C-alpha cells in the first residue's frame, strides 16, 4: 500500500444507546479505491459521514495526512462527498451547482468558469450548464453531483451509494466511468455500497462491515476466494457450505471427512486438530458435476436448472437432502449441454479449490443476516 492518507483509529459511535461502530481502525492509502461493503445498518454510512465530518466519534480519532481532524467541521475538510440522492441545489443551474464550492473558496470569476467547464467536460455535460437539475435525467444528475464534488480537487472523494438510484445498465456504465475518473484524477475514492458485485468489480480493497466491526479487509480476490469468516463468505457471492470433520493432521496436509468422502486437503492457516468440525466452502463455479456412473463424488439429482447465457446454473439435491449450487460454463465441445430435472448426477470438486473455515461459536446465521445476504446478492 502507498502512503497513508486517512487513518481512523479506535472509532466508536453510539446512537440512542445502540452501538453503530465498535473500536474500528482503518487506514486508507493515497490514491486507492476502497469500498465499504455491508448490509444496511452495518455502520458503513456512519463511517463515511465521520470521514466527511457530519458525525463525530464518541471515542477514537480521524487523521488526514498526519493532521488530527476528528472535530473539524465538514466545511474545513479537504474532502468532498457525492450523496446518495445527489443533493443538487434545485434552485441553481448545473453551472452554479458545480461552481458552488469554488465560490465558497472565493476564487476569481475566470478561474471558476474555467474549472467548472473543465469538470463538466470530464463528465460529458458541457452542453447542459444552463439547465436546472430537474431538467436532467438520473444519470445526468449523478454526473453533476460528481463534477460538483471533484471540481474542488479534494484529496479524497466520498461516495455514499452513488449508483443505487440508477437502473442496471446505467449503473454498469457509471461504474466504468467512475473507475476512469479515479484513474485520471488520481484521488482516493471511498465508496459505500451494499452491492457486492459493484464492490468486487471496482475496488482496490474492500472493507466488509457488519454490526460496526470490520469482518474482513482485503482485495476483491482475497475477499471472494479466501473469506475470513462465514459472514463474508455468505455475503459476497454464493457459496456451498459443506460440514467437514478432521480425521488426520499431518503437517501440510490434513484429511477431512466431508459428505462421506475422505479428502486430502491443505492445512488451513488456523490451528486444526483431529475430530475438529470445519466448514468446507465451495463456490458454485468450483463444483464439478459428473455423470452418475462416475466413481468419484457424491450422488444426487438435479432439482433446478437456470440458463444464464454464459453459464448453466443448477441446484443438486444430495441424498441427505442437502442442496448444492453449481455453475458451469458452456464448453466449446458441447455448447448445447443441459440438464433435465430429476436427472441423476454426482457432485465433486478439484482438491485445493475448496476454502476451509473453522466452526464459529455464534452460528448459525440469524434470519436477518440471511435476508441481508440475500438482498445484497440481488
Amino acid at each position: 500500500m502507498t502512503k497513508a492518507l486517512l487513518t481512523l483509529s479506535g472509532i466508536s459511535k453510539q446512537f440512542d444507546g445502540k452501538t453503530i461502530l465498535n473500536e474500528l481502525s482503518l487506514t486508507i492509502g493515497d490514491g486507492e479505491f476502497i469500498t465499504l461493503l455491508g448490509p444496511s445498518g452495518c455502520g458503513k454510512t456512519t463511517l463515511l459521514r465521520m470521514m466527511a465530518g457530519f458525525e463525530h466519534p464518541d471515542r477514537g480519532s480521524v487523521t488526514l495526512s498526519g493532521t488530527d481532524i476528528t472535530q473539524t467541521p465538514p466545511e474545513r475538510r479537504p474532502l468532498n462527498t457525492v450523496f446518495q440522492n445527489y443533493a443538487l441545489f434545485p434552485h441553481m443551474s448545473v453551472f452554479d451547482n458545480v461552481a458552488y464550492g469554488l465560490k465558497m473558496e472565493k476564487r476569481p470569476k475566470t478561474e471558476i468558469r474555467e474549472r467548472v467547464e473543465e469538470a463538466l467536460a470530464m463528465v460529458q455535460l458541457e452542453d447542459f450548464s444552463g439547465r436546472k437539475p430537474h431538467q436532467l435525467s438520473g444519470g445526468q444528475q449523478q454526473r453533476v453531483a460528481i463534477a460538483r464534488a471533484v471540481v474542488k480537487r479534494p484529496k479524497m472523494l466520498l461516495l455514499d451509494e452513488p449508483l443505487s438510484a440508477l437502473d442496471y445498465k446505467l449503473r454498469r456504465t457509471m461504474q466504468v466511468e467512475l473507475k476512469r475518473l479515479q484513474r485520471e484524477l488520481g484521488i482516493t475514492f471511498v465508496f459505500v455500497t451494499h452491492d457486492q458485485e459493484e464492490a468486487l468489480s471496482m475496488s482496490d480493497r474492500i472493507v466488509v462491515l457488519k454490526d460496526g466491526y470490520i469482518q474482513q479487509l482485503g482485495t476483491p480476490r482475497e475477499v471472494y476466494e479466501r473469506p475470513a469468516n462465514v459472514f463474508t463468505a455468505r455475503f459476497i457471492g454464493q457459496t456451498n457450505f459443506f460440514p467437514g470433520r478432521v480425521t488426520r493432521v499431518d503437517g501440510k496436509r490434513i484429511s477431512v471427512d466431508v459428505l462421506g468422502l475422505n479428502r486430502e486437503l491443505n492445512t488451513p492457516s488456523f490451528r486444526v486438530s483431529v475430530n475438529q468440525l470445519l466448514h468446507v466452502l465451495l463456490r458454485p463455479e468450483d463444483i464439478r458435476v459428473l455423470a452418475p456412473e462416475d466413481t468419484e463424488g457424491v450422488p444426487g439429482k438435479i432439482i433446478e436448472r437456470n440458463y444464464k447465457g454464459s453459464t448453466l446454473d443448477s441446484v443438486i439435491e444430495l441424498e441427505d437432502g442437502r442442496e448444492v449450487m453449481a455453475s458451469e460454463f458452456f464448453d466449446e465441445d458441447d455448447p448445447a449441454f443441459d440438464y433435465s430435472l430429476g436427472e441423476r448426477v454426482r457432485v465433486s470438486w478439484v482438491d485445493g479449490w475448496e476454502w476451509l473455515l473453522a466452526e464459529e461459536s455464534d452460528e448459525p446465521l440469524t434470519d436477518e443476516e440471511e435476508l441481508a445476504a440475500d438482498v445484497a446478492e440481488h
Partner: protein
Amino acid sequence: MRWLSRSYLALVYLLLYVPILVLVVFSFNDSRTGYNWGGFSLRWYESLFSNHAMVQAMWNSLWLALTAATVSTIIGALTALALHRYRFRGKKVLNGMLFVVMMSPEIVLAISLLGLFMLVGLKLGYVSLLLAHVTFCLPFVVITVMARLSGFDERLPEAARDLGASEFTVTRTVLIPVIMPALMAGWLLGFTLSMDDVVVSTFVSGPGYEILPLRIYSMVRVGLKPEVNALGSLLLVFSLVMLMLSQWILSRSKQ
C-alpha cells in the same frame, strides 16, 4: 345537453362576477342616486382622492398590512424552521396552539387582544393594530413555510457544508432560496388578511389611527355613497395586481 351545461356554467360565472361588474360600472356613474345611470364620470374618484381622511386611511392600511405581513413572515419563518428542525419539549403544544389561533372565531381573538392591551395599558393605535394583525397572520405563514420545509431535502445543507459553506452561508444560499416561494406566499397571505380585516381591527384600533376597512364600514353605515364603489374598484385592481405578481413569482421559482 351541451347548451344546458354551457348555460349552467354561464350562470355560475354571472353570479360570481355580476356584483363586481356592477360595482366597477357604477363607480363611473355620474348620478348621485346610486341605481340609475347618469353618464360616465370620474367624479367619485376625484372626491375620493380629495377626501383627506380617506387617503390617510388608505395609507395607514397599506403601511399596516406591509409591516404586519413582514413581521409575521420573519417570525413565522423562524418558528417554522424551529418546528421543522428541532425536537424539543412542548413542540406539539406549540404546533397545536397555532391551529387554535387560526381556528378560533375572530371575535374571540379580538376581545382577548383588547383585554390584554387594556391590562398592560397599551394605547390603542398603530402598535396595538400591528400586534393584533401579526397574531392572526402568524399561523398562516408558519403553515405555509412548514409545508415547503417538509419537502426540503436534508442533504442539501449537508452538501453545501461539504463544499465549504459555513452554517450562515448555507442559510443564505441554500435554505432561504429554496423556501422563498413559501415566504412570498406567506407574506402575500398576511398582507391580504391584514388589508381586509374588520372584526379584530374594530376592537383594537384607536381614534388616532384609522384604517381603510373600518373607514368603509362607517361610510356604508350612513348609506351607500358612490365613493365606496370607486374605492372598491381601486381595491379590486390592487388585488389583481398582487395576484398576478404572486403568480409571476411562483412560476419563476417553479422547479
